């Protein structure tokens, strides 16, 4: 059985004269945690933007479940099951916590105009199920009591968790997290660690992770890709990466 989820080859993104991403290759299998590391400005976020359809890559192929997706618009890619968070949290700040989760379930709810107008049985059932799913996730990330709070008023760590839960409401198979531990305290980082592993083991999804917290990355990653100035530098298991002289020189050496 082929268990390849995502295959990226030759991915290149040029902004005018700047080659932000140069010939990057990636491979994600089912139920894997894959990390992408590299110094600031290495082009990691740009890779995410190319994969999720926010940028049109200059060159390269993105194959998701055997199907090329690099020309598709962002919302179509997301519907196929590749969903991302953002380096700077992008919640719907004025909406409540639970509304944030309901918006993400848009496709799974009853969007028929007449059904909603007359509150038909199927409409109410779909809404109730949506709220139920949201409640389950709020329980899981410890935000149940804040369900009717404005999302923008949550603490930073809570907002980060809510953003992950919001992605999960779309029922993805590949979750892409852009620096999810940035700004978290050590206890929150440990919780995040636990959550990511749980997503892989219990929700059976794969995670593509951009992160600077080396303890987190080395602890949970199945494989790691290192990029430096847009170019792929190395890839392998955490052990291999930690002992790779190029990586140590270019990146880990800073620590």
């Amino acid at each position, binding site marked *: 059985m082929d268990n390849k989820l995502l295959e990226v080859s030759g991915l290149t993104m040029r902004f005018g004269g700047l080659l932000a991403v140069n010939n990057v290759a990636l491979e994600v299998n089912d139920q894997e945690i894959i990390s992408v590391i590299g110094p600031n400005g290495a082009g990691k976020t740009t890779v995410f933007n190319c994969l999720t359809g*926010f940028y049109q890559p200059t060159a390269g192929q993105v194959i998701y479940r055997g199907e090329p997706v690099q020309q598709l618009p962002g919302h179509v890619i997301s519907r196929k099951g590749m969903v991302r968070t953002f380096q700077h949290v*992008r919640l719907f700040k004025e909406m409540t916590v639970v509304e944030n989760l309901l918006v993400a379930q*848009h496709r799974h709810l009853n969007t028929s105009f007449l059904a909603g107008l007359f509150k038909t049985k199927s409409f109410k059932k779909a809404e109730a199920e949506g709220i139920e799913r949201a409640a389950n996730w709020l329980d899981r990330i410890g935000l149940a009591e804040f369900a009717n709070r404005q999302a923008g008023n949550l603490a930073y760590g809570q907002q980060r968790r809510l953003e992950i839960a919001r992605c999960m409401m779309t029922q993805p198979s590949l979750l892409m997290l852009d620096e999810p531990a940035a700004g978290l305290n050590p206890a929150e980082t440990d919780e995040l660690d636990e959550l990511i592993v749980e997503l892989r083991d219990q929700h059976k999804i794969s995670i593509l992770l951009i992160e600077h917290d080396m303890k987190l990355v080395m602890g949970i990653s199945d494989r790691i890709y290192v990029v430096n100035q847009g170019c792929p530098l190395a890839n392998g298991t955490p052990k291999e990466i930690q002992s790779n002289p190029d990586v140590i020189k270019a990146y880990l050496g800073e620590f």
Partner: protein
Amino acid sequence: MSKSSFIDALIASVVMLILTSWLLGLQLDNQPDGLRIILNDAAHTTWVIVGVVLVFFTQLFKAPISRVFSGIKSKGQDSGFKLPAPEEKPTLYRFLTIAALAGLLIWPFVASRGAVDLATLTLIYVMLGLGLNVVVGLAGLLDLGYVGFYAVGAYTYGILNTYFGVGFWTALPIAGCLAALFGFLLGFPVLRLRGDYLAIVTLGFGEIIRIMLNNMTEVTGGPNGISQIDKPTLFGLEFNRRASSDEATLFHDFFGLDYSSNYKVIFVYLAAVLLVVLTVFVINRLLRMPIGRAWEALREDEIACRSLGLNPTIIKLSAFTIGAAFAGFAGSFFAARQGFISPESFTFIESAIILAIVVLGGMGSQVGVILAAIIMTILPEMAREFNEYRMLMFGLMMVFMMIWRPQGLLPMTRPKMEMRNG
């Protein structure tokens, strides 16, 4: 009161004097031998002097005044009154709804004919405000050409009625659908634009529709408009003094009453109440449907929406189309009430007034928009004697609103969801 603030005040009042003496102190007079510039009468001079003195002193005491202002402002924001969501206070809302409905139904039987007619106009603006609220307040799409869809609705009924004798109740849904179609077709190319650009393009579209109506003389009557549009009928009963055709039955004949033109006014009013109630109901439901949430999400963050698999184009288009449909309903109603329409009624200032209603009411708040629509139609009527200064008052009101309550008169709190475990 330092020396510098004295100098500032002096400069400001001199500037004021120069500007106003040009604008108010002089007058063009049409003499037999051509235009002459003459001095204006003394009353104007007095006002100019009063104005200059006023400017001098406000500038002089700018610091203490702005301290008072900021005091009010911060207090206003602390205790900023917000309407509770209906889910929070269901009994209060049920009571308010019943009271409002009762008031609306009793009104035509206690108020004067003119007041009832004014109430009908107010209801049309309520409908327009609620419709534009979907586009601007909820979806965050700044539409300055909303009056175009209003015009489409009005002319749809006007034309269908004059050329094909179509009745109001048949034309109403057609007008709504046609306006929605216009909204859809215009929305398609422009909705990729954002903010200011969208505003300018929609402004252009509103004007194009008006100019088209002005120039298609054979169909629309051009600047002369369309007149003698029929009033709505009650299940085929007409409200005229004499029947328009042999088959037609008259309302007062049918019920054995004496003819009174009041019946017509009251009936048009009640029909408007019905339409507004329907509008409030539909939009209230929309808000609690996935599409309503998607509109608001889109207003807040389009990129996040896309990342969650929501198609921004479709969502924007649906807001634009639904908003246009309500303008279409309101337009055909306007045509029915006036009995006469011309492009004059659909100038940009109408768009501006409707937008002002939305902003004044509190973006996204239904009750606020209704209140603002009432204020915006009743105030100008009460301030008839200030006719020339109406726009000035309008502007002043907007400025003060922006200072005191930028969130609108009655902003709404978010609807609360009942969670399984609180």
